[in-house]
């Protein structure tokens, strides 16, 4: 049962083949079995999850009309606050902190009757591409435990790939949902900015952050997207419009007559040959399904990485200032408030976080603002214009999600720039605020590890991603004969 999709599980629940308690317990058992190896979870809330499951079962029994995913379990990235449950954001700074409120995403999950199993591991404060920056140890890729699961949301994607949960929530600032999805053979979606509420999402880079659905299939992700998305009055940057019809689009995957734009700048040098091969094969498949493939050029994308690594650290240097040992979080050190603040931030933050805070502080300083932050904001405009021009020629834009498959844990840990390059294909979407999705494109020749196919749609047209993604997914499944995750090694065999 745990290998099924969320939609299949929901069906089994509604036809009373299985109860939510049984389903939840099965997943808790799987977590016990494999998580010592995978380390996807930072906190497992067995009691709470089973209580939620009992509640859903009771309501179902009483004949109440329930949401489509009611009773299905989910793993929640530890960057979203959940009332009374430890929320660490992968940092020592928040060790032991139990928020006194729920994020809107969590409220909506609860309203939908979705069972929150626990909080998943992540790069500290969402900064990283490998989950190696977690203060609580890395997560291991279920495909090869010696490898990274991607980041910053490696825990969520690994949980899906290890069948610890059929659904997960991630957050994506520069690719943190999509890149882990790519390297774990799962599906991850970053909605249009403003499509999912950020209230209760611990901020890393406010103008880029976005929470999104993660799953093993496109349709599962669509249902989850509809469950959490939509306007929230608690978030001033929330879009006041109906959620795009993503479930309908996912159910009617069809690319006939669509134009698919291949972004010239997001391939070539720096991309692993096996990854590119899979990408091109997917393009051929799409063409065979009736899509027209065109090439587009987005020349300012070459500057995207640079702009991102100015904007995100700048915003984070401000967002993380609140962690000062005065009101919550750890407190270390002696002496004055100022001394305690500085000592706590020194000990509470990891290397990457400190690096970005210092970089961001510099980029915002008087005298340097125009050259750095100010200029980066202009590049953002140029990138948006590039997308606009490209979308005039194509319905969706595509690229490989990440330049490589999963690398070994420790391999890039000491080379920040090499690490940053993992996001080279995903970053432009965050800068422009449009939506991006990654679905598995297959296993790369060189290493047999998963790679991802990225689909991008214009702002608020998230349904197009699901439409194309669903069509490609079906075609690939047909080609492979079985889901990609069937190829993953089985875990927990001791």
């Amino acid at each position, binding site marked *: 049962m745990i290998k099924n999709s969320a939609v299949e599980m929901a069906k089994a629940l509604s036809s009373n083949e299985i109860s939510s308690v049984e389903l939840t317990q099965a997943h808790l058992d799987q977590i016990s079995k494999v998580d010592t190896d995978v380390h996807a979870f930072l906190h497992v809330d067995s009691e709470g999850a089973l209580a939620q499951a009992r509640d859903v079962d009771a309501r179902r029994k009483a004949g109440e009309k329930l949401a489509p995913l009611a009773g299905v379990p989910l793993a929640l990235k530890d960057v*979203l*606050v959940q009332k009374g449950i430890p*929320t660490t*954001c992968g940092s020592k700074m*928040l060790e032991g902190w139990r*928020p*006194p*409120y729920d*994020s809107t995403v969590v409220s909506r999950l609860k309203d939908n009757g979705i069972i929150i199993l626990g909080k998943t591991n992540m790069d500290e404060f969402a900064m990283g591409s490998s989950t190696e920056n977690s203060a609580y140890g890395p997560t291991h890729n279920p495909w090869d435990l010696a490898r990274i699961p991607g980041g910053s949301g490696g825990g969520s994607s690994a949980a899906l790939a290890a069948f610890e949960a059929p659904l997960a929530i991630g957050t994506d600032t520069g690719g943190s949902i999509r890149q882990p999805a790519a390297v774990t053979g799962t599906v991850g979606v970053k909605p249009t900015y403003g499509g999912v509420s*950020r*209230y*209760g*999402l*611990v*901020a890393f*880079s*406010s*103008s880029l952050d976005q929470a999104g659905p993660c799953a093993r299939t496109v349709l599962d992700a669509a249902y989850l997207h509809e469950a959490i998305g939509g306007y929230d*009055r*608690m*978030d*001033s*940057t929330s879009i006041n419009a109906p959620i795009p019809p993503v479930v309908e689009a996912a159910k009617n995957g069809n690319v006939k007559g669509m134009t698919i734009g291949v972004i010239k700048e997001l391939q070539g040098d720096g991309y692993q040959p096996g990854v590119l091969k899979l990408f091109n094969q997917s393009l051929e498949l799409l063409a065979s399904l009736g899509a027209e493939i065109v090439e587009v050029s987005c020349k300012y994308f070459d500057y995207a990485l640079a702009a991102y690594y100015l904007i995100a650290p*700048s*915003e984070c*240097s*401000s967002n993380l*200032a*609140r*962690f*000062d040992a*005065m*009101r*919550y979080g750890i407190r270390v050190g002696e002496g004055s*408030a*100022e001394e305690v*603040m500085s000592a706590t931030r020194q000990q509470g933050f990891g290397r990457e976080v400190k690096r970005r805070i210092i970089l961001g*502080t510099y980029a*915002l*300083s*008087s005298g340097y*603002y125009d050259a750095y*932050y100010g200029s980066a904001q202009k590049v953002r405009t140029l990138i948006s214009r590039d997308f606009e021009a490209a979308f005039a020629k194509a319905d969706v834009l595509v690229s490989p999600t990440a330049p490589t498959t999963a690398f070994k844990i420790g391999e890039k840990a000491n080379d920040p720039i090499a690490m940053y390059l993992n996001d080279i294909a995903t970053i432009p979407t965050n800068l422009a605020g449009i939506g991006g999705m990654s679905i598995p494109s297959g296993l790369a020749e060189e290493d047999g590890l998963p790679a991802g196919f990225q689909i991008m749609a214009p702002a608020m047209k998230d349904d197009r991603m699901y439409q194309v993604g669903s069509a490609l997914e079906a075609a690939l499944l047909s080609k492979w004969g079985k889901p990609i995750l069937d190829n993953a090694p089985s875990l927990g065999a001791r």
Partner: protein
Amino acid sequence: MALTYDDVIAKYEPVLGLEVHVELGTESKMFCGCNTVFGAEPNTQTCPICLGLPGSLPVVNAKAIEYTIAIGLALNCSIAPYSRFARKNYFYPDMPKNFQTSQYDEPICINGYLDVTVDTEGGPREFRIEIERVHMEEDTGKSLHMGGSTGRIHGADYSLLDYNRAGIPLVEIVTKVVTGTGKYAPEVARAYVSELRDILRGLGVSDVKMEQGSLRCDANVSLRLIGADKLGTRSETKNVNSLRSVERAVRGEMIRHAELLNKGERVIQETRHFHEDTGLTTPGRSKEQAEDYRYFPEPDLVPVAPSAELIEKIRATLPEKPSVRRKKLQEAWQVPDKEMAAMINADVLDLVEATVKLGADPTRARGWWLGEIARIANERGIGAAEMPITPADVAEVVSLITSGELTDKLARQVIEGVINGEGRPAEIIEKRGIKVVSDDSALMAAIEKAIAAQPDVAEKVRNGHVPAAGALIGAVMKETKGQADAAKVRELLLKHLGQA
């Protein structure tokens, strides 16, 4: 040798900059729905947003925007068609996010002015204070400094933070550099804050109580030699909690700067703290190395673009300007300029108006408020508005004088009684048995008694020496315990003695 103020202005001219912070009287906070009521138990009016908890997000209070636009319009500002919030980044425990959500290079109102009138040697003079900007921001929490001897931050062992006031909407009004005030700088500064306060009160956007901190003034002062072009180094004085303190602080800083400059010393650019008791300032944190606030546009909020319709709607609801209102009153009451200025200075104009509205004669109403009541208020070191006597009380007393039931002298006793908390005028008159003796026969009895006691004086009066009657009148007043109408006594007495 200490300089006198005259010494200072003989050599230097002052340049001012005034920053006024106003707490808006909205129901809820600037970015969240917490209550804004003053005086609640600590940390009972906080939420994830105003506590800056991880994950929280601000949402702008619509009323705060409207109030700010109203303030801008009342100050003759242009309302920016497009304005933005910005983060002002610095660390301090009373600021939950360690940045203040404020406005930086795109404030909501710009380029206004306020005209104030100051009493000078040559008569009332008008000064135009130009206003640079009016912008919105949020207030901080409040700290209690514990363990030290003074309750001030220096010497404290630790501090206790209450975030009830964190997030209260604030409007900051910043003047452009104010030159040309010469020796009247202190009065101009005071008049500016006073006028601003009247306007804000009239708009109903704040209760503007300086003592409670809902109106705060920071005074920037610098000196330059008379005729010089270049501006001198300025100091910023905070903790100026009353109109009187504004004036004293400016004067005090002018003298302090001059003393330094005369000695050839440098004025340090710094923040200083004003002390009510001494009228002097002491240094706070040095501003030599100004903190770099690293302003950038607030990403969690979207721009504010007030429509022309909204602005006109607000403009239409603006009340009459205080200066216009004052002119109308002055005409209606036929009051000379100097008296108007006196009433404004003593902050009794509203009280007088209220008293007149209740039917009192303007001149008498003015007389009481400016006279007796202002005098006692001054003695007590409080404002006339805080005296335990109301316009209704004064109006009642005035009407009793007009009807002849009280003489001026008796009325003074009644007023004193009200101020001393003995009750309302009617109660006091009853309790103390204050009554004008106007019954002629009773008066005559007292008159005859007085004449009998001082026959020689009476004889003088009969012989045409009218001023001598004073002694007899005095005796009658004493006999009637001051309750006779002195004018009436004189009339009857003189008539009786053949001099009427």
